[in-house]
């Protein structure tokens, strides 16, 4: 406080109800100067932004949107702790900036009355004045400022209007003593709070310091039992006994806890708003009302909902391909790989850069088109007000498995990709519901499983069709694919139900959801949110994914020994070298343009060289740590019908499921360039035999067992990494990996064993 105001940074806490444009105001104030992180131990996102005004620096702490400053969970406690300066990782708050919805002042003032009780300098930003005007409300903000004794600034957050005035008001408020308002709760209640405080004071100074007046009041009001058991310093059994007695006295006096708070605050809000809000005599039917009538209609509403969800799903599935975003990423990565291959001599460094680093970076950026697309849609739906309607329409369905309507979109998105799906689960405010949603999201059959299904179905499932000519349906292939999607979905439903009955048992959380007015979405806000989510993924999960990719590369590369290959086939490496020399000579003898047909001689040499190199790569992999691991786990995977090569491919695909296709290519001596459409790879898989026998590895039960395994396993480092970042703990990704791998193993085992009995 001793520094002159020009050099002091003012810390501003931004708080407000959900759907008031709080995030928009935060972005408008801090622009790109913001950092996000996590508060340790909770799943609340920590967003801190910076801005300045006439040389005055501001730090803005964006608190989670809330209707009430009454913590009933560790997540909700964060806001209270920040405001009461009880957190070391956030500077002491100088000014509280409270944003309210002008069209809905009565309910917004509930939170305002709690904020004002904290005794901090407060500025009120009144947003959405246009929506209020639509509803025919006339507001006298000057009168409101007089009633509340706080500066009031009207803003239009999505147009950036009123920001200058807002910063000016904040700077001024920081230096002015706050005006304490009369506490809106009844005198008898306040007397009880004072008595509790006095009793604390009698028992020792430290307790009083630890328990500010507001927390004592909350302790008296919190019948949910959270604060009593949250381990707050100063809260002990004698104090809780006094709290219980106080509650009994209040109930006798006709002021029962917790009702006394809401009745008191809403009565106060009604008095404050007297003469501030003039409502039209007849309630006006707004455009928003008319839209809502259609969108919540049993028939039209359902049809629109299905259309919107279908569009969202198609977009997340196809936009990355259709727009060429995936192609561009692939080309860029291929270009980078070629650049490395051209400039770095062959060996460990080249392989690390190409497979470990570029492959790892690819594993991160490959998700960006999907994350961008999904969050473009989610931000759009959220900003226009439809998101809450989607949850409203789907709630009944989701409640059957113990979740709420808010879990629907995260789970639907997970069919495209679990990573953005898990990120989208942030809208679910109930911790148990959010965790269950996150835990089952990876069971939805995502697009990365498709290459595995495509390859194995095409190679091993008989192509039975109905019809002929242009109407030829490969029905058995379609049924198999559908079965794989169903396995995931049904398992997810069962898993969610079991999680809710066991690990996350508890009372059904209240489903109390505001249905905000519809409005035109702001394109700037939508794009901002989309980029923010993409960046959050790169920043939060990127390094972890890269690390996993490098570790798996090292396992597949080391210990590299040419001697081991010579021991198997002494002539192999010399032959490859000789072929390379012959090929170079032949190419020089008859130079051809890059895209022209090579001469038969050159083509033959190229083929032979590729075969020899493929075999060398296959032998290297067999001798690597990964190959050894594959052999070590062979007894474990044998009951699934797998040989060590399949086991090895399953381990190698830990970073990402689709990697299995390339790994199978290497392990079957075809090199890395194989994809799921490759005819050679299909041929090779069909011809593969158990080592030292001519019994084929693959038959229909084995192919199905591999597919079922990949349908249910958690082979995706990105999913586990984002899970860690979203939950702030390794416990949940570890649990997911264990339960999904366990399920996958059992299901693959049953598939193979039953399949073998059937084909007898």
């Amino acid at each position, binding site marked *: 406080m001793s520094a002159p105001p020009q050099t002091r940074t003012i810390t501003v806490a931004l708080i407000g109800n959900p759907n008031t444009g709080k995030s928009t105001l935060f972005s408008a104030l801090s622009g790109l100067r913001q950092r996000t992180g996590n508060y340790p131990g909770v799943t609340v996102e920590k967003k801190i932004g910076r801005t300045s005004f006439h040389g005055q620096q501001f730090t803005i702490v964006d608190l989670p949107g809330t*209707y*009430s400053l*009454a913590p*009933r969970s560790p997540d909700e406690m964060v806001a209270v702790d920040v405001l009461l300066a009880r957190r070391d990782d956030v500077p002491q708050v100088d000014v509280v900036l409270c944003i309210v919805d002008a*069209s*809905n002042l*009565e*309910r917004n003032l*509930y939170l305002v009355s709690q904020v004002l009780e904290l005794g901090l300098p407060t500025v009120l930003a009144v947003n959405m004045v246009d929506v209020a005007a639509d*509803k025919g*409300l006339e507001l006298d903000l000057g009168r409101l400022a007089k009633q509340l004794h706080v500066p009031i600034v009207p803003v239009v957050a999505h147009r950036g209007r009123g920001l200058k005035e807002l910063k000016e008001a904040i700077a001024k408020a920081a230096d002015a003593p706050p005006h304490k308002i009369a506490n809106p709760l009844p005198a008898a209640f306040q007397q009880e709070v004072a008595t509790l405080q006095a009793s604390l004071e009698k028992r020792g100074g430290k307790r009083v310091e630890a328990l500010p007046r507001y927390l004592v009041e909350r302790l008296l009001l919190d*019948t*949910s039992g959270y604060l009593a058991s949250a381990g707050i310093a100063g809260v002990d059994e004698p104090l809780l006994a006094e709290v219980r007695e106080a509650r009994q006295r209040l109930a006798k006096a006709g002021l*029962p*806890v*917790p*009702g006394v*708070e*809401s*009745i008191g605050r*809403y009565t106060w809000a009604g008095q404050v708003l007297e003469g501030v809000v003039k*409502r039209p005599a007849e309630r006006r039917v707004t455009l928003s009302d008319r839209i*809502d009538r259609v969108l*919540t*209609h*049993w*028939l039209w*509403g*359902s049809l629109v909902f299905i259309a919107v969800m279908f569009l969202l799903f198609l977009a997340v599935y196809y936009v990355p391909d259709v727009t060429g975003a995936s192609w561009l990423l692939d080309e860029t990565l291929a270009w980078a790989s070629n650049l490395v291959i051209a400039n770095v001599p062959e060996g460990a460094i080249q392989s690390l850069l190409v497979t470990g680093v570029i492959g790892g970076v690819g594993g991160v950026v490959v998700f960006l088109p999907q994350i961008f697309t999904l969050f473009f849609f989610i931000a759009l739906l959220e900003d226009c007000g439809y998101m*809450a309607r989607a949850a*409203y*329409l789907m*709630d*009944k*369905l989701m*409640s059957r498995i113990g979740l709420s*309507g808010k879990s629907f979109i995260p789970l639907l998105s997970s069919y495209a990709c679990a990573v953005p799906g898990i990120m989208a689960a942030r809208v679910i405010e109930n911790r148990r519901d959010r965790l269950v949603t996150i835990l089952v999201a990876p069971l939805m059959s995502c697009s990365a499983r498709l290459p595995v299904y495509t390859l194995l179905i095409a190679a091993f499932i008989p192509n039975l069709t109905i019809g002929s000519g242009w109407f030829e349906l490969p029905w058995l292939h379609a049924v198999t694919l559908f079965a794989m999607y169903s396995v995931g979905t049904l398992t997810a439903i069962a898993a969610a139900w079991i999680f809710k009955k066991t690990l996350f048992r508890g*009372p*059904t*959380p*209240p*489903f*109390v*959801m*505001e*249905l*905000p*007015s519809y409005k035109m979405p702001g394109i700037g806000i939508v794009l901002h949110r989309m980029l923010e989510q993409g960046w959050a993924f790169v920043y939060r999960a990127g390094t972890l994914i890269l690390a996993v990719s490098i570790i798996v590369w090292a396992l597949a590369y080391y210990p590299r020994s040419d001697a081991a290959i010579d021991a198997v086939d002494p002539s192999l490496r010399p032959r490859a070298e000789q072929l390379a020399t012959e090929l170079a000579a032949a190419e020089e003898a008859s130079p051809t343009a890059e895209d022209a047909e090579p001469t038969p001689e050159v083509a033959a040499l190229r083929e032979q060289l590729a075969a020899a190199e493929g075999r060398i790569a296959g032998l290297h992999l067999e001798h690597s740590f990964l190959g050894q691991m594959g052999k070590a786990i062979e007894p474990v995977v044998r009951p699934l019908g797998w040989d060590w090569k399949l086991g090895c491919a399953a381990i190698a695909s830990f970073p990402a499921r689709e990697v299995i296709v390339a790994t199978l290519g290497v392990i079957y001596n075809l090199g890395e360039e194989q994809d799921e459409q490759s005819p050679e790879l299909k041929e090779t898989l069909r011809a593969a035999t158990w080592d030292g026998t001519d019994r084929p590895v693959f038959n229909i039960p084995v192919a199905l067992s591999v597919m079922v395994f990949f349908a249910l396993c958690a082979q995706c480092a990105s999913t586990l990494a984002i899970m860690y970042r979203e939950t702030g703990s390794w416990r949940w990704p570890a649990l997911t990996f264990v339960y999904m791998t366990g399920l996958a193993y059992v299901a693959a085992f049953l598939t193979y064993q039953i399949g073998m009995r059937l084909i007898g």
Partner: protein
Amino acid sequence: MTSNTAATPLSKLPIGSRGRVAEIEGDDEVSIRLMEMGLVPGVELVLLGVAPLGDPLELELRGYRLSIRKAEAARIMVQVIYEV
């Protein structure tokens, strides 16, 4: 606690009814949440509709719209102003 016997649970009202809240039953998290959202004794509300699958309900009160499940609405005792 409320002496009025004419109060009906909100979950039992026909769509389109208007009523005044008489009492919120219980003192657990659910009832705190309802009261924080403005469902306190004396407030007027309109039951606007129900989701296509039969639950939850859509209400209007204090100039905004709120969705709650029937299980929660069963705790809200309402004096009917008019039924449709």
